[in-house]
C-alpha cells in the first residue's frame, strides 16, 4: 500500500545533523528549557511549534549559540552538530554562526546596498579570492534566495528599499552566502503577506535539498506545509517530535492534539 501514497514528503537522508541531549536553559532562576533531547536530520525541514513562551525560540537560539549574548542565560547539556559539541570552549561562536545561519522574524537587512548585504559575510569570513569570485557568490546566493531576477538590475540600491517579502528573501540570501550547513529561521514569514509567505515557503522547500532547516513558526498551517518533521514544545518541554503528517493527523500526546486543534494556548 505504501507505494500508493502521495509521497511528497520524502526525505533524502536520515542522517542526524543536530543532536541535542538533556538540554536545560536557564534565564537567571527561570528554567526555560527542560530536558530537551532531539535529533534533527540533515536535508530536512524541522518545524518547532508551541504557544508563546514554550521555549521553541530559546531552543532554536541554542543551536547557533545566540543565547551567549544574553548574560543571565545558561545552557546545560550537549548540542552536537555533526558529532561536534558546539558548546566546547574551543569552538569560536563566530565560526559556528557561519556554519549555522539564521533568519529572523523581521527582515533586518543592513543599511547597505543589496550587494553588500550579501557580500558582507563571505568577505569577513574570507570566502572570496577576488572581486569576480565575490560577484559569483553574491549572484549565487541571490539566485538561491529566489530574488535574483527582482534585484539584478539594482544591486547597488539600498536593501532597505525593497518590499518586506523581498527584504526577507534578501536576508535568506545573506544567510546562505556563507555556505552554512544549518539554517535556523525564527518566524520568517510572520511579517509577510500571503504571496511573500508562499515565495519564502517555496524557497524553504528548495533549500532543504542542501541544508538542514529548522523553522520556528506560530502558523500551524505553515509548519504543516513546509516541514517533514515537527517538534511540539510546551512549558519548556519537548512534548512530541515526529513526522509532520503524524503530528497533524494523529498525534500521540493529548497536549499536542489540544494545541494543534486550537484547544490550548
Amino acid at each position: 500500500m505504501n507505494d500508493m501514497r502521495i509521497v511528497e514528503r520524502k526525505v533524502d537522508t536520515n542522517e542526524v545533523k543536530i543532536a541535542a541531549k538533556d538540554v536545560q536553559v536557564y534565564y537567571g532562576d527561570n528554567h526555560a528549557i527542560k530536558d530537551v533531547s532531539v535529533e534533527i536530520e540533515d536535508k530536512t525541514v524541522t518545524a518547532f511549534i508551541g504557544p508563546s513562551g514554550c521555549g521553541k525560540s530559546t531552543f532554536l537560539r541554542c543551536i547557533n549559540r545566540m543565547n551567549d549574548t544574553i548574560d543571565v542565560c545558561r545552557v546545560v547539556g550537549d548540542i552536537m552538530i555533526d558529532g561536534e559539541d558546539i558548546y566546547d570552549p574551543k569552538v569560536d561562536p563566530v565560526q559556528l554562526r557561519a556554519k549555522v545561519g539564521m533568519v529572523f522574524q523581521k527582515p533586518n537587512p543592513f543599511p547597505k546596498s543589496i550587494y553588500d548585504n550579501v557580500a558582507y559575510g563571505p568577505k569577513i569570513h574570507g570566502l572570496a579570492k577576488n572581486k569576480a569570485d565575490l560577484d559569483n557568490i553574491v549572484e549565487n546566493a541571490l539566485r538561491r534566495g529566489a530574488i535574483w531576477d527582482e534585484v539584478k538590475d539594482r544591486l547597488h540600491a539600498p536593501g532597505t528599499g525593497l518590499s518586506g517579502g523581498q527584504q526577507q528573501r534578501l536576508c535568506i540570501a545573506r544567510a546562505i552566502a556563507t555556505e552554512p550547513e544549518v539554517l535556523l529561521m525564527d518566524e520568517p514569514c510572520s511579517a509577510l503577506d500571503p504571496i511573500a509567505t508562499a515565495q519564502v515557503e517555496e524557497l524553504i522547500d528548495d533549500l532543504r535539498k542542501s541544508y538542514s532547516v529548522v523553522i520556528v513558526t506560530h502558523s500551524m498551517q505553515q509548519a504543516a506545509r513546509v516541514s517533514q518533521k515537527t517538534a511540539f514544545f510546551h512549558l519548556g518541554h519537548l512534548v512530541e517530535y515526529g513526522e509532520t503528517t503524524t503530528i497533524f493527523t494523529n498525534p500521540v500526546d493529548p497536549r499536542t492534539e489540544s494545541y494543534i486543534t486550537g484547544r490550548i494556548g
Partner: protein
Amino acid sequence: MHDKHIASAFDRDLEAIQAQIMKMGGLVENAILEAAISLETRDEERAEAVRVADKAIDALEETINEEAARVIALRAPAAIDLRVVLSVIKVSANLERIGDYAKNLAKRTGVLSQMEPVNGSAGALRRMAKEVEGMLKDALDAYVARDAELAQDVIDRDIQVDQMYNALFREFLTFMMEDPSNITACMHLHFIAKNIERMGDHVTSIAEQVVYLVTGAIPDEARAKGDKTSLPS
C-alpha cells in the same frame, strides 16, 4: 471527550454538523422499520410515506456535505477535528445509501402487495431489517459516545445479517423451483433481502468510521464474510 476550542464558533460548527448526522440517522432508522412493516402488512400508504420521506434524507446529506466543506475551508481542521469532518462526510453518504435501499424496499412493496404473498418471507425480511436497524442505532450511539468497542461489536454483528440473507436466498430459490409462478414475487423479495444485506454493509462502514474517529486508524478488513452466495456451491 475533548476540551472546548478557544474559538467557540468552531465547537458550535462541529456540534451542529454532528447533530445533523444524528437527525439523518433517526430518519434512516425510521425508514428501515417503516419500509419493512409496510411490506409485511402490505400497507401501500405507509410505503408511499417512506418514499416521500427519503427526500428529507437526501437534503440532509447535501447540507452536511456543504457544512463539512465550509468547516474545511474556513477552519483548516487537524487531528481529531479533521477526523470528525471526514467521518461526517462518509457517514452521511452511507446513511443516504441506506435510505435509498429503504426507499427501494418501499417501492417493491407496491408491486408485491398486488401479488400472492410468499409463505412467511415478509416476516423474515422484517426481522432482518429490524436487526440492521438495531445495528444502525448502536453504530450511531457509538458515534455520539465515541465508543470504539460498541462500534466493533456492530461490525462483528454484520455476519448475522449475512447469514439471514443466505438462508432467504436459498429459500427463494427453492420456492422458484417448486413453482415458476412464484418467480416474479421471489425476484422482488430477493432484491429486498439483498438490499437489506447491503444496508448492513453500510452500517458496518459507519461503525468503521467510528473506530477511525476514535483511534485514527480504520479497522482491518479481516472480519468474517457471511454472504457466501457469490461463491461457487
